[in-house]
């Protein structure tokens, strides 16, 4: 019996996990489908007042780097100074370079656009085969380096490589030296800092790697972009501006960033703004000159149609079982109740493990549904008022010696009257207008049942015990509310209803617990073995 129960629990917990794993790994189905509008909002602005030291370095008007479209990126709402720029269809260009420089833009220009960093599947580019002569010359040029810098670079190069090494080996040695030995330090901006102090900024490290490559006859360039550290929604925005090195080896350009161990392949976490930008690099590095702001755009759940058509292509079997097939009205009801089994885990936990007393077993989940139906603030306020009124009128009705059923019916009428008054009051005060629309018959039934239980409890158990139980009921329903209000969970359960088995397994597990309830430790605290010894 014990073994069969254990096997059943493992099965109930294992089936949903296995199913999710299978869907994700083998069918490539997202367990929480996201709408394709997972965009990041990016805003670039160049400060009008260029500091003197940069204005000397910089020749001509400030340059606004615009990421050009390529087939691996999607950009929308591209605006320059509030005016839309046309977004062309992805060019079939073989060149991976994604920068178009608009020269002569006014210095206070603001560029904004939205981009999908995660969806940008940066596949391996088509090989370029050979660089044009002029290009090769530009990418091998050491003009941007001072004589002093070249001395440092040459010295470093000689210690790292043998002249007999092939180009790839040479570059790998440079890359791993920087990756292993050089620490990231944002105020170490010189090449000498990298070679002598073993620390450097992203730009100093990129210039070092480009310099070392060019000295070894490897075409290389500095690229500027942003690195999303945690490009997830609902998390604080974390990104950093970076300078990477791109080198041309074996007929193709490959990006490298020693600090983040990016070696040859970019993923969606990198947004490239401009390539071959050494001349503007110091300006791009400075936050006072180039201001960069990146924020995630809200996630939207996917529409049923969209998800169904996705599923059809991935797995017709799962598509045939999908709840997305149901009519939208039925889907809305299912979305309302799909998390109830999950909420029961919280109830079981609160009662069996914590030992919290509640009015009945399912009153907390009913209250949770009440809060969800009405919104928490509306629900809570209405609940408090109705409970007070319900208790008051209960004492009034007691004087008339009415039988139980008619009394409950009167209570229901009172509740509806208060509900209507409360709705009108909210409208008059122009508050909670959103919840106004969500008034439905369901909460009234819940609240009436609750009042009946509450008033009986006051009569039978006295006010103190009733308040204790009421607090317990609130406590559990608020925990359930916290769980059930998570829209992500709702989408997850809706798309993977087999997870309900998990809650059955969890309830079986909790139901098998025979240890003390947490509150029993307080209750039995006084049972003392010393007393027991005296007793014998």
């Amino acid at each position, binding site marked *: 019996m014990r073994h069969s129960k254990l096997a059943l629990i493992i099965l109930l917990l294992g089936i949903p996990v296995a199913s999710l794993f299978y869907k994700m790994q083998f069918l490539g189905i997202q367990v929480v489908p996201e709408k394709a509008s997972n965009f990041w909002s990016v805003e670039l602005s160049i400060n009008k007042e260029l500091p003197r030291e940069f204005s000397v370095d910089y020749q001509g008007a400030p340059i606004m780097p615009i990421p050009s479209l390529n087939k691996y990126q999607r950009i929308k709402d591209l605006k320059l100074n509030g005016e839309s720029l046309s977004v062309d269809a992805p060019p079939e260009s073989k060149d991976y370079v994604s920068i178009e420089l608009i020269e002569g833009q006014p210095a206070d220009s603001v560029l904004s656009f939205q981009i999908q960093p995660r969806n940008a599947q940066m596949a391996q580019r088509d090989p370029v085969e050979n660089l044009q002569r002029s290009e090769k010359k530009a990418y091998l040029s050491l003009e941007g380096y001072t004589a002093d810098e070249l001395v440092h670079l040459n010295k470093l190069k000689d210690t790292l490589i043998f002249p007999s090494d092939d180009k790839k080996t040479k570059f790998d040695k440079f890359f791993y030296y920087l990756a292993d030995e050089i620490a990231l330090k944002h105020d170490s901006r010189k090449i000498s800092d990298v070679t002598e102090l073993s620390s450097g900024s992203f730009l100093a490290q990129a210039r070092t790697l480009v310099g070392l490559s060019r000295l070894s006859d490897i075409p290389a360039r500095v690229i500027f972009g942003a690195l999303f550290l945690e490009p997830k929604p609902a998390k604080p925005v974390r990104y950093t501006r970076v300078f990477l090195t791109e080198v041309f080896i074996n007929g193709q350009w490959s990006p490298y960033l020693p600090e983040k161990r990016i070696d040859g392949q970019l993923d969606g976490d990198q947004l490239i703004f401009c390539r071959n930008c050494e001349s503007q690099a110091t300006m791009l590095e400075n936050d006072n000159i180039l201001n960069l702001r990146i924020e995630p755009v809200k996630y939207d759940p996917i529409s049923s149609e969209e998800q169904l058509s996705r599923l059809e292509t991935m797995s017709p079997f799962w598509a045939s079982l999908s709840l997305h097939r149901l009519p939208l009205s039925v889907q809305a009801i299912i979305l309302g109740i799909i998390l109830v089994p999950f909420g029961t885990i919280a109830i079981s936990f609160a009662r069996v493990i914590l030992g919290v007393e509640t009015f009945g077993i399912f009153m907390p989940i009913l209250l949770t549904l009440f809060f969800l139906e009405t919104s928490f603030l509306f629900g809570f306020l209405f609940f408090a008022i109705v409970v007070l009124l319900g208790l008051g009128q209960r004492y009034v009705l007691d004087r008339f010696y009415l*039988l139980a059923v008619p009394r409950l019916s009167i209570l229901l009428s009172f509740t509806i009257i208060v509900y209507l008054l409360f709705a009108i009051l909210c409208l008059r005060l122009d508050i909670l207008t959103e919840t106004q629309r969500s008034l439905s018959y369901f909460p009234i039934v819940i609240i009436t049942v609750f009042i009946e239980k509450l008033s009986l409890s006051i009569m*039978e158990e*006295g006010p103190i015990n009733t308040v204790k139980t009421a607090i317990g009921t609130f406590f559990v329903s608020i925990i359930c509310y916290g769980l059930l209000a998570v829209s992500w969970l709702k989408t997850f359960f809706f798309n993977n209803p087999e997870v309900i088995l998990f809650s059955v397994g969890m309830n079986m597990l909790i139901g098998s*617990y*025979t240890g*003390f309830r947490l509150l029993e430790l307080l*209750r039995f605290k006084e*049972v003392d073995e010393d007393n027991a010894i005296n*007793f014998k």
Partner: protein
Amino acid sequence: MLSTLSRLNRQGVLGNNKRLREYILPLNKRRYYPLVDSKHLTTKVLQDNNIPHPETLGLVHSVSQFKKLHPLLKDATSFVVKPSRGAMGNGIMIVEGIQWDEKRDNTILRTTRKDEISFQEFTYYLSLILSGVFSLDGTTDTVMFQQKINPHPALQNICHRGIADVRIILFHGFPVMSMMRLPSKESGGRGNLHQGAVGCGLRLKDGTITFVTQHNRRIFNHPDFPDVVLKDREVPYWESIINIAAQCGEVFPLAYLGVDIVVDPVLGPLVLEVNARPGLSIQIANQKGLVGPLKTVAALDREGMSLAEKINFSRNNF
């Protein structure tokens, strides 16, 4: 917290989850619950087996029977009104006197809760019971009129209003723990421990008080009678009480049960109620856990043991 947990485990304190999972659910068969949940079925079992219990004056099943109240109760000067399916003493009203009037509405009753109530108030209360307000599962109920038990003089001066009762927990017919519940002002004359009644642990051997508790905490005297020493006070008729309790263990087909017994000065010990899910506060009143005695009984070779042998074993071992 962990130290409390390990102390309670060492002490063999039985928690609610273990009580349900290891004793009540597997050992008390659901089909026998009505025998103890319905007081008039309990009375029938007790009657059939000649176990002393308060006499039932009558039953009322519907509002239409209210007109028969006068012939039913006219000879009783005092009686107890009970919901047949009530739990934890809920819904019990003790009527101490009744003045019948020709006009029914002028009839006045004297109760322990309110001094005087009108006949209208009385029948309203009965209708509440019938509608299931006090029943275990909220379904419609039956009103029981029972003979009123008078407090024994030895216990009268330690009870506020109501009557003291002795709760004995039986396991496979063996008494394993016992306590006495004394009504207090706070509990409104009722014996419910969670409403503030005083719980006294009793030695199974001789029925003397060991520890006194209220609200799960140890105290030394009844809060309403601070001058009365409770420790070592003896419960009258202990031999009979433990005997009657053990008899209940034989006639009710439940392995784990609680028997509530009251002592009337004239009638002696009477079984008031039998409970299939007796509470756990008895452990606090006795300052010891139930797990030890329960395990001892479970491990015993109980086959062929007589009632007297079971009682003797319990009195000598628990």
